[in-house]
């Protein structure tokens, strides 16, 4: 098997596990990143912006690609402003576009996300929009210049798993960009399943942050994601169907 490279925003990655950095003590980030084997880590720009004590940027290991997100943005304009700020802070050109105008479920606003993606892609950002898995929106995001599409598996932070499985599969089948499943994945087995389906990568945060042993759960996710990827690449075997028919009721009429 050749080298399996995950290309994103012109960079090469060997890990397909994007780790979130929220919801747990910043002191644990280093260990979690190491155990996860993660090469990309997300952070909320609104946290990086605080400065002084507890600045999350100080705790992220060197050599890891930062994926700042625009959480807190309620519309496209706010997301664009946060992204620009992130670039000024030295967080690079990668940006995960998160726009929510619902504080209860934190579901992404697809229409505003398309607008922000369009603006940010034109400004040279590696735009990675987080979205509700809708095929039409995904196509709009492709046309807007997204570098990948990040559909949610379930409401963010819910750990409910692949609630949107059928719709994610549609995006995997129809969209040429990498599909990074983001939000809702609660267990390593779910991360494995979505990789088997052909997702390019998995992003997880709460599942790890709320585990009993954070570094150990990070390690479990790493293995699950790798297993799912290998299964996908090797081609899943067939499922034998019940019964069999010896006769040819549908082709018996053929003459030659």
């Amino acid at each position: 098997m050749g080298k399996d490279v995950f290309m994103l925003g012109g960079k090469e990655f060997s890990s397909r596990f994007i780790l979130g950095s929220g919801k747990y003590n910043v002191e644990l980030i280093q260990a979690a990143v190491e155990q996860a084997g993660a090469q990309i880590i997300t952070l909320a720009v609104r946290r990086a912006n605080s400065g002084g004590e507890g600045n999350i940027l100080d705790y992220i290991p060197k050599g890891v690609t930062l994926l700042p997100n625009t959480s807190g943005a309620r519309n496209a304009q706010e997301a664009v402003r946060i992204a620009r700020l992130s670039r000024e802070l030295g967080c690079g050109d990668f940006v995960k576009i998160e726009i929510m105008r619902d504080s209860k479920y934190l579901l992404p606003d697809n229409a505003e996300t398309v607008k922000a993606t369009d603006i940010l892609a034109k400004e040279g950002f590696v735009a990675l929009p987080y979205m509700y898995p809708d095929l039409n929106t995904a196509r709009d995001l492709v046309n807007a210049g997204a570098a990948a599409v990040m559909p949610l598996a379930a409401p963010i932070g819910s750990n409910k798993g692949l609630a949107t499985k059928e719709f994610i599969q549609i995006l995997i089948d129809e969209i040429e960009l990498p599909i990074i499943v983001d939000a809702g994945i609660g267990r390593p087995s779910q991360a494995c399943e979505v990789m088997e389906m052909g997702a390019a990568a998995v992003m997880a945060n709460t599942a790890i942050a709320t585990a009993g042993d954070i570094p150990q759960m990070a390690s479990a996710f790493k293995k699950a994601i790798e297993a799912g990827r290998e299964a996908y690449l090797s081609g899943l075997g067939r499922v034998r169907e019940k019964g069999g028919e010896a006769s040819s009721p549908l082709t018996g009429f053929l003459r030659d």
Partner: protein
Amino acid sequence: MQTDRRERVNHMEYMEGMEQIESDILDKVIGARSRYQADSYSGQEVRAALSHDNRSIEDFAALLSPAAEPFLEEMAKKAKQETEKHFGNSVYLFTPIYISNYCENYCIYCGFNCHNRIHRMKLNMEEMEKEMKAIAQSGLEEILILTGESREKSDVTYIGEACKVARKYFRMVGIEVYPMNSNEYAYLQKCGADYVTVFQETYDADRYEGLHLAGHKRIFPYRFHAQERALKGGMRGVAFAALLGLADFRKDAFATGLHAYYIQRKYPYAEISFSCPRLRPIMEMEGIAGDGHGGQMKEKAVVPVVEPLGGKEVSERELMQIMCAYRLFLPFAGMTISTRERAGFRDHVIGVAATKISAGVSTGIGSHSEEVEGQGDNQFEIADNRDVDEVTGAIREQGLQPVMNDYVYV
């Protein structure tokens, strides 16, 4: 008669007036076709392809391969499930109307070609009205307007007028005419037609060159991009086909499927469908073996063309395999079964793979109405002469539902 290749125009170069569009689909399809090695697949890959819910390009390749032949019954079973899932019990009916058989092309396998001395005719507006009225009386609500490929004798305005007449009698109007520019497609869409069928004949560009010796049709890429231009012109749907038997039919079927696949991915709102024509004997040919001079004129004779052209006859089993492979690869696509096939074949493939069937067909000009005097000769021989009532009866016999139309032109 353009028998010397050096005297023929470059078939890959656009002629004046031909619109060029930006598209990478031709390279993708032709590249994949040339790489496709049908003999390299095994039963294991066919079994895997059959077990998948969504089938990949590789699955499609396996299903079209000789390794899939022993699995034909299983393919048909799966195809039937997919057809039922997407189309239910419905089988759509239509009929083609040939309004002109003038042609400026020299396609050596076609009865309409410009060197073939057949009786040429084109319907005037009054005749067209009579013909369409006669067809509509049979209960059909969908019509497919066909012409020979002559811009001079059947220009875009003439075709547009035919579409307008057709709209008076039919709820759905499709066209199968020479490829044109997107603004011309837009014009015909306004006139009432919104489905465009273009057969690429073969996706082997070299073979194509040797079969289409003269005329606009000779330009391979212009024909290839017709569906895309039609969609840019606002057409609702497009149909694809290779004329099976002209070249390696597995490769051509593979390319046809990919052509539709890439178009649908680029234009997700487009409706797509397949036709599955096998090359049939044609009327009265001259020098079909390609010697140019020695060929004898045959009076109204029906002559075989596949073997003399160096092609290979496609068997019913092979045709069935292709149709099932199309269905399994693109389960949502429409599929038309031609009257080139015998009734017994057509009746069994509807509901399994095909979704649309023609009835009351004549490939000649002016043959539907008794009020139209004189007739133009046929393009090819048909194998199923049944009228609309007979075909709807056969559909019901299969437990299926004949549907005349399920579409509103907007």
